[in-house]
C-alpha cells in the first residue's frame, strides 16, 4: 500500500512542478509580471525546478518592467557554471544587457569578457554588438571601431561602417572646449557645435571689455575695474564651464546616434 502511495507521489510531483511553472510562464506571457515574479520565486523557494532557468525567467519579468538593476541582481544569484551551454550563455547575455540598460557599463563589459572566456565555443553577434555599443558609451571610439571592423569581417556583412561618417569620427574634447572659451570667448561653444550660444557669449564678454575700456578712458577706474573687468572675469569662467558642459552634451548626442546605427544593424541581422 505504502509502495502504491509512493509511486503516486513520485508520478504526481513532476506534473505539479510542470503545472506551477506553466502558471508562472503564462502569467509572464500575459504581462502580469509581478505575479509571475512571485511564482518564479515560489518555485525557487520550494526548490522544485532548475534555479538558473527560474532566475533567468524572473529577470525577463523585471526587464519587461524596466527594472534593469534588479534584473541584473537577480541574475547574479544564478550559478553561471550550471546548466547547458545555451542557458549559461543566456545568463551572461542577459546580465550584460541589463547592466548596459541600467548604465553600468563596466559591469556589462565584465560579463561580456566572462562569456568570451568561459564559453569560447558560443559566438553571438548580439553580444558583440552589445560590446561595441558599451565601448561607445564609454567613449572608447577607437576600440569600438576596431571591434566593429572585426565584426563585419567575421560575419561577412556588406553593411557600411557608421564610424566612417564624419559626425561619428571623433568626439568633442570637453577640456579643450573649456580652454578655448577661456582664451577666445565663445569659441569653445562653437567647437562644441553650438554657434548661437558661442556668438551670445562672445557679444556679452566683448561688451563688458568695451565698458571697462571706456570707463578707464573716462577716469571711472572703480567702475571699469569692478563692473567691467570683474563681470568679464565671471562671464569668462562661466562661459568656459558652459562650453565644457556643451561638449559633453554633444558627445552624448553623438553616441546615442551612433548606437542607433548599431541597433539598426542588429535589427537587420534579426531579419
Amino acid at each position, binding site marked *: 500500500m505504502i509502495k502504491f502511495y509512493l509511486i503516486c507521489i513520485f508520478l504526481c510531483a513532476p506534473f505539479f512542478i510542470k503545472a506551477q511553472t506553466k502558471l508562472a510562464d503564462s502569467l509572464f506571457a*500575459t504581462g502580469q509580471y*509581478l505575479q509571475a*515574479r*512571485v511564482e518564479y*520565486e515560489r518555485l525557487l523557494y520550494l526548490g522544485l525546478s532548475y534555479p538558473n532557468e527560474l532566475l533567468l525567467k524572473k529577470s525577463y519579468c523585471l526587464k519587461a518592467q524596466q527594472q534593469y538593476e534588479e534584473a541584473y541582481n537577480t541574475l547574479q544569484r544564478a550559478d553561471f557554471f550550471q546548466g547547458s551551454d545555451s542557458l549559461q550563455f543566456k545568463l551572461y547575455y542577459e546580465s550584460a544587457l541589463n547592466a548596459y540598460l541600467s548604465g553600468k557599463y563596466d559591469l556589462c563589459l565584465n560579463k561580456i569578457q566572462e562569456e568570451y572566456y568561459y564559453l569560447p565555443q558560443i559566438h553571438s553577434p548580439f553580444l558583440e554588438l552589445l560590446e561595441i555599443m558599451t565601448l561607445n558609451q564609454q567613449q572608447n571610439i577607437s576600440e569600438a571601431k576596431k571591434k566593429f571592423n572585426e565584426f563585419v569581417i567575421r560575419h561577412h556583412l556588406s553593411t557600411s561602417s557608421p564610424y566612417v561618417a564624419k559626425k561619428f569620427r571623433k568626439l568633442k574634447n570637453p577640456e579643450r572646449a573649456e580652454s578655448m572659451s577661456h582664451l577666445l570667448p565663445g569659441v569653445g561653444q562653437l567647437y562644441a557645435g553650438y554657434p548661437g550660444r558661442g556668438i551670445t557669449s562672445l557679444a556679452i564678454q566683448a561688451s563688458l571689455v568695451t565698458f571697462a575700456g571706456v570707463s578707464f578712458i573716462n577716469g*571711472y577706474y*572703480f567702475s571699469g575695474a569692478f563692473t567691467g573687468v570683474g563681470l568679464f572675469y565671471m562671464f569668462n569662467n562661466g562661459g568656459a564651464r558652459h562650453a565644457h558642459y556643451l561638449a559633453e552634451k554633444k558627445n552624448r548626442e553623438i553616441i546615442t546616434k551612433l548606437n542607433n546605427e548599431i541597433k539598426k544593424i542588429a535589427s537587420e541581422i534579426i531579419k
Partner: protein
Amino acid sequence: MRRLPFLVFIFLFQNLDGQSISKELLFAQHLLVKKNYKEATYVLGLLKHQPAITSIQRDSIHYFLGNIYYNQKNLAYSITHFDSVSALSVRMRTEAIFFSAFSHAYLKKLNRAEQQMIHYTPLDSVEQHLRLLELSGIYLLHRNLKKFDSLQRLITKTNFITSQQEKDLHTQYIKITEQPKKSPWVAVALSTLIPGAGKFYAGQKGQGVYTFLISVVLGMQAWEGYHKDGPSSVRFIAYSSLFASLYIGTIWGSAFSVKVRRYQLNETINDQILFDMHIPLRTVFH
C-alpha cells in the same frame, strides 16, 4: 482569455486553510530575507484577506509588512503595521514596539515615541537597557535635559550591547549643553556696523568675508559716481541702490544665518542621536 492565468492565480489563493497560510507566511519571510519587497508585499496583501487566518498569523503579516516598509524607509506605513501587532505575539510585539517608537522619533513625533517606551514593560535585562537607551535618546531629541539627567542614574553602562551608545548619547548631551547661544540681534548689530560681520559671527565665515568685499566694491563705485558726476547722476543712483539693497539684505540675512546655523548644528546632533538609538536595535533584533 488574457486574464485567465491571473484568475487561476487568484483561485489558488482563495480560502487557504491555516496550514497553507503558515506555509505562505514562510514563503513571505523568504521573500523578505531575499529583499524581494514588492513580491513579499504582494503575497502578504493577498494573505491579509484570508477568512481562515488566525490572530497570530495576522500579527505575523503586520510584523513582516512593518519590516518591509521600514527597510524601504516608508516609516509612516511601517508604524501603522508595527502598531497593529497584538500582544498575543510577544516577541514580534516587542520588536514592533521598539521599531515603532524609533520610527516615531525619526519622524519627530517625540511625544508618541516617549509614550510607547514609557508604557512598555521589558521582559529581560537587555530590553530594560534598550528601553532606557531609547528613552534617553528621545529626551535628548526633545532637548529635555532634566529627564535625560534623571535617567542617567538608572543607566549602568555595563551591558555590552548598549554601553557604547550610552556613552555616545552622553557626548551628545555635552554638545547640547555647551552649544554656543548666539543672538540674532547681535548679528544684526554687527552687520549694521560692518557689512558681513554678522554672518561671520553666526559661523558662516566665508559668506561674511565675501559679503564684505562685495559691499566695499559697490560702495567704492557709488562713491566714484558721486565724486565725479554728483548725487543725481545715473551712475551714482545705480551703484548706491545696489549697495543699499546689499546692505539691508545682509543685515536681514545675518539674523537668518544665526537661525540657520543653529538649526544645522541641532540637526547634526539629532542625526547622531538617532544613529546611536538605531544601532542597538539592529544588534538585538536583526
